[in-house]
């Protein structure tokens, strides 16, 4: 790892100020991606601003069906939240399968979303749940937030402070995990509202990162049943192709994971 300077912020405002005073800084949440990346010298920030001790960014609030998760909330806290489980158990299930127990004790929802790894689990949930990303300066809809591989709408120095969404009537997440890394080779999060609206987001498969599949959404809105996905075409031309799976294989996985998700919802 190259040399870096560590700073610990105790408030969102202090973190923004710290970041504005350093040349090539990065925010550090749980660090479960950033620290390994720095160890490999794939990232070399001049400064790190640690957000883990900012109490206003932690915690889960559920009011009726309205859910607010502080950005510094760990995967373990989401996975074991009784409040979230009561209204959106699919999100607890998703969080409980990220990484391993030790990673879940450190990794955070804000960190995962800000990083927008194309194989990360949370972006699919945030997009399918039509969540709002709350930052230190504005609110961003999930549809506007994820802009490409490891790319988001966040500006320089902007901090995600919370994720907000209304729990859907039903939801489920299914992933086909890489047998070695356990990262999603394809993961599908599906959410259905009381009015019949369906949102379905795919992670691990898109060559441009997480995406909604409108064809599957339309088919499931018309017929909420696992069989409804059978005749939907998933275009392989926009999908990732690598040593783990070809684009055509992933296209099929999208349909299979969608089918399993609807069955599990």
């Amino acid at each position, binding site marked *: 790892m190259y040399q870096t300077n*560590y700073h610990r912020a105790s408030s969102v405002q202090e973190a923004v100020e710290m970041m504005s005073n350093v040349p090539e800084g990065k925010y550090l949440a749980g660090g479960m991606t950033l620290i390994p990346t720095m160890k490999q010298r794939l990232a070399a920030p001049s400064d790190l601003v640690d957000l883990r001790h900012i109490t206003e960014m932690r915690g889960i609030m559920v009011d009726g069906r309205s859910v607010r998760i502080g950005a510094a909330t760990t995967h373990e806290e989401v996975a074991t939240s009784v409040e979230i489980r009561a209204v959106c158990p699919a999100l607890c299930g998703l969080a409980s399968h990220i990484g391993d127990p030790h*990673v879940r004790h450190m990794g955070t929802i804000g960190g995962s979303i800000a990083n927008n790894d194309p194989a990360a689990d949370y972006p699919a949930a945030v997009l399918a749940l039509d969540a709002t990303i709350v930052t230190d300066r504005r609110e961003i809809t999930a549809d506007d937030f994820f802009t490409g591989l490891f790319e988001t709408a966040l500006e320089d120095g902007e901090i995600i402070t919370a994720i907000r969404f209304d729990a859907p009537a039903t939801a489920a997440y299914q992933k086909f995990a890489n047998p070695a890394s*356990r990262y999603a080779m394809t993961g599908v999060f599906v959410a259905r509202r009381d009015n019949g609206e369906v949102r379905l987001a795919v992670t691990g498969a898109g060559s441009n990162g997480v995406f909604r599949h409108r064809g599957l959404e339309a088919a499931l809105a018309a017929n909420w049943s696992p069989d409804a996905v059978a005749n939907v075409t998933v275009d392989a031309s926009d999908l990732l192709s690598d040593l783990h799976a070809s684009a055509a294989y992933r296209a099929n996985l999208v349909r299979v994971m969608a089918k399993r998700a609807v069955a599990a919802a």
Partner: protein
Amino acid sequence: MANIRMTVNGRQVSGVCDDRTLLVHFIRENLGLTGTHVGCDTTQCGACVVDMDGQSVKSCSILAAQAAGSTITTIEGLAQNGDLHPVQEAFKAHHGLQCGFCTPGMVMTAVDMIRRHGGNLDEETVRAELEGNICRCTGYHNIVKAILAAAAEMGGSRQAAE
């Protein structure tokens, strides 16, 4: 440079290191506690697992500076007054190790697992919970047996205490 203070195995410690120094290196090199191992260096193998503020973490993927002010327990901190921790006893009784390199991380992971699940652990859960720990000798069978035995004993003794 970072001036680090933390509590390790019940003792107040301090040391000076680079801001980039990993917690595992601070524990091993500054504090001389070499029971915590570095195996893969890619956050996968779990040989470096320690307890930080009541939860298991991979000390190879946390900066010492991030851990400043925290309370750490390493493998050296488990035995009390010369008596092995029940998980350590169970690993010994069930031959849960061969070369022993992964064992500190396995034991720390097992302690955390039992903390969260109590005596209700079953084999499937133990195997799923070992996702972040790699052993190249045992094939895991005796590690799983040892953790189940320790969970039963610790869960049982907790019930007796209640």
